[in-house]
């Protein structure tokens, strides 16, 4: 791109003084029309390649990629800063600076190669299955994130900010796990009933904020946050009951769910990847159909875009709020099936981990679209899958993964920030991100 172009665009999008932010029009973002905008007839004659280049530079995909690059770079800084060897070498930086850079390179190289071999392909393995195992781990980790991310995405597009995936997931997992270990049903039916149990549990927990929002106007953010903690305490209490504990044990852990209620493994016993992943992809397709092709999905989107207009057009906004929350809750509940029926096969208070909150970042990164959510879930699943390798090979705590994850979402949420860092031109019409 040409020099004058990049500077001007970046400067205009990120004014130093907040007050000077938007020059003229409050509605269509602060970008004034520019002479060389694409599609402008006054722009230079038929410079097709330049237009294409501009389109690439303005695309939100590039922003996403750059956000990931920036986050990995900041993550790298942290890794370097926390590395013992680097700090040691830095003490004699001025006599032998090369040592410091050497140590920095070692620390970074070690960390990122560990990430790669933990999440994508492991070339040190002896056979083919060993080489691709990390990637199947990534997909396994992505499974609950896809489910929950899809549900949250529906909520965001309908204008509901559901922070409660954590609680919905936990209640779903509880119901599913209970069906799994307490009922003994024939093969096939058992799994089906357990999956329905997960969805039902989540749906119930999603119904509460939806109902309260629709009936009393209670803000769903507050209600869902509070319900997360109520769910956690409820499950902690349930796990003290004999009905939920293993026989002869007082530990807060349930028995292992019956084999008939577990997801079958997808690629044989060498891999942890289970059919839950396929179900998650099917749900993604289903959500796509729901939101893009069905009347109900159109109503959801209309309510999200403008509830007043939707009401005027004769849509039942109250019903839409409740339905959205029930569907989102059911999907979050299904996310709970991934640990209890797939990987861990037991229920503890730690079953939900940070899945519910990670799913928020997944939905935001995926821009609430099913395909985007699946891709984002695989990316974050990869980050999670690389945790153990990072710990063992590079001696880094898994927390660095969560830092990178949070940074990615923070950057994605503020495209102008990313554009100004990388000096990218701003598009003529900036789409609103993150609901």
């Amino acid at each position, binding site marked *: 791109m040409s020099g004058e172009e990049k500077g001007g665009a970046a400067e205009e999008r990120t004014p130093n003084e*907040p007050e000077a932010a938007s020059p003229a029009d409050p509605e269509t973002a602060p970008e004034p029309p520019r002479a060389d905008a694409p599609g402008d007839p006054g722009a230079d004659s038929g410079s097709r390649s330049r237009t294409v280049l501009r389109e690439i530079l303005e695309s939100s995909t590039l922003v996403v990629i750059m956000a990931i690059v920036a986050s990995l770079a900041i993550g790298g800084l942290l890794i370097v800063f926390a590395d013992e060897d680097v700090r040691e070498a830095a003490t004699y930086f001025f006599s032998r600076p090369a040592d410091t850079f050497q140590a920095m390179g070692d620390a970074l190289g070690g960390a990122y190669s560990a990430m790669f071999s933990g999440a994508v392909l492991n070339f040190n393995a002896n056979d083919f299955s060993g080489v691709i195992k990390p990637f199947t781990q990534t997909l396994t980790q992505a499974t609950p994130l896809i489910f929950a991310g899809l549900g949250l995405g529906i909520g965001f597009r309908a204008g509901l*900010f559901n922070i409660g995936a954590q609680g919905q997931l936990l209640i779903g997992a509880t119901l599913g796990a209970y069906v799994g270990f307490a009922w003994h049903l024939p093969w096939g039916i058992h799994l089906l009933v357990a999956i329905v149990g997960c969805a039902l549990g989540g749906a119930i927990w999603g119904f509460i904020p939806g109902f309260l929002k629709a009936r009393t106007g209670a803000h769903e953010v507050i209600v869902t946050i509070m319900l997360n903690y109520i769910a956690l305490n409820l499950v902690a209490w349930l796990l003290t009951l004999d009905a939920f504990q293993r026989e002869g044990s007082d530990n807060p852990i349930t028995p292992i769910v019956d084999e008939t209620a577990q997801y079958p493994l997808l690629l044989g016993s060498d891999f942890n990847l289970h059919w839950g992943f396929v179900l998650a992809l099917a749900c993604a397709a289903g959500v796509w159909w729901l939101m893009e092709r069905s009347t109900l999905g159109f109503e959801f989107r209309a309510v999200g875009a403008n509830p007043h207009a939707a009401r005027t057009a004769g849509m039942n906004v109250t019903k839409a709020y409740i339905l959205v929350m029930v569907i989102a809750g059911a999907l979050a509940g299904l996310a709970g099936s991934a640990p209890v029926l797939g990987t861990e096969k037991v229920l503890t208070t730690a079953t939900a981990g940070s899945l519910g909150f990670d799913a928020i970042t997944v939905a935001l990164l995926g821009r609430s679209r099913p395909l985007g959510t699946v891709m984002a879930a695989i990316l974050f699943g990869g980050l999670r899958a690389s945790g153990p390798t990072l710990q063992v090979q590079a001696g880094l705590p898994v927390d660095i993964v969560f830092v990178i994850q949070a940074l990615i979402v923070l950057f994605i949420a503020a495209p102008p920030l990313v554009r100004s860092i990388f000096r990218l031109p701003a598009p003529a019409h900036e789409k609103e991100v993150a609901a």
Partner: protein
Amino acid sequence: MSTTAVETSSAAAGAEAPRTKSWKSTIGLGVVALLSLLFFGFGTPTGVQTTFTIARSSDFIELPSVTVPSRAAAVGLSIVALLLVAWVAYRANQYRKVGIWLPIVFGMAIMGALLTWAGADRSTTTIQLTGLLTSALFLAVPLVFGSLAGTLCERSGIINIAIEGQLLAGAFLAALVASAVGNAYVGLIAAPIAGALVGWLLAVFSTRYWVNQIVVGVVLNLLVLGLTSFFFSTVMSDNPNLNQPLNMPDIAIPVLSSIPVIGPVLFDQNLLVYIMYAVVVIIQIMLFRSRWGLRMRSVGEHPKAADTVGIKVNRTRVRNTVLGGAIAGLGGAFFTVASGLAFGKDMSAGKGYIALAAMILGRWSPKGALAAALLFGFADALQQQLGVIGSPIPSQFLLMLPYLATIFAVAGLVGHSRPPAAEGIPYKK
């Protein structure tokens, strides 16, 4: 953004119809009071007694223990709660609302009934009233600071979900700096800086980049959790001397601290608690009686009007959010230096969200936030004490109380809570 439209619509609906009789509070509180009467009142066997120990052995004036007939006391307290419900009904009939004091007194009556019921017929153990109140106050410290931070931010129009992150950041930096210097009090200076930094990020992303404030808040919480855990597992575990348990001694205020009950509870605490008293009083006065407070509230209620008279909306918001972050950060010092503990992963453990709840229950005012935070602190202390004397109520249910109370509050079952009108909406000229 679409959620804002929904918020404004619900807020507008609340403002347009003040003359409708709302029976939601009456019904909500009434059900709780009746349940209390049934379970705690009539659930207590007749002819047994509950003993409350008031004095501690170290006290200047030793008050005798108070023993009350359990059933009569529990029934009496439940009836007090029912009378309060009757007052709510009376006011509702006159289209009037009740003050913040009502849900607070109501909560205390129910808690008292619960305490009497739990302590009934236990000859060996007694309810340690002073100890209970002392730990209630102490446990409420991070909640008070957190909810004050939330009040400042939300009054100026920025939703602060990041209280949790600000508390955690404060706890982390307080431990780090205090350990490096070797003085716990230095931690009290470092903690607000960490919180202010998180608040600044929140403010910048919300005012300059117009990112949804709830998104930023949630993500900042995750970021701070990740960062502090990362440094805890690397830098701090490599250098244990950077994370020591340092203690801040209790300072007994002469004369005042020898008043029975009140003395040891209020005036024999450490410096952070005294700072908390000052901060609550200052913010309560400044928010409603000063130019600064008026401007902040105007920016949060009607930014356009504020801008018209020359108030810099976004600058006001950034400043107050940073200040709020600093206050929450100071509250974070509670977890480490003020409790005499070293930093640990995810120390704040959801206290930031309870602080948010206290802010809502306190209806966005400092004194309300203080009262709600004390109530939640009391529930927490009660849960610990009931764990000691062995109560039939599972502790998890007591831990749920703050969250349940908040859901009731936002659903309008416990009075009416209305957030600042322009909260969460970025101001674009």
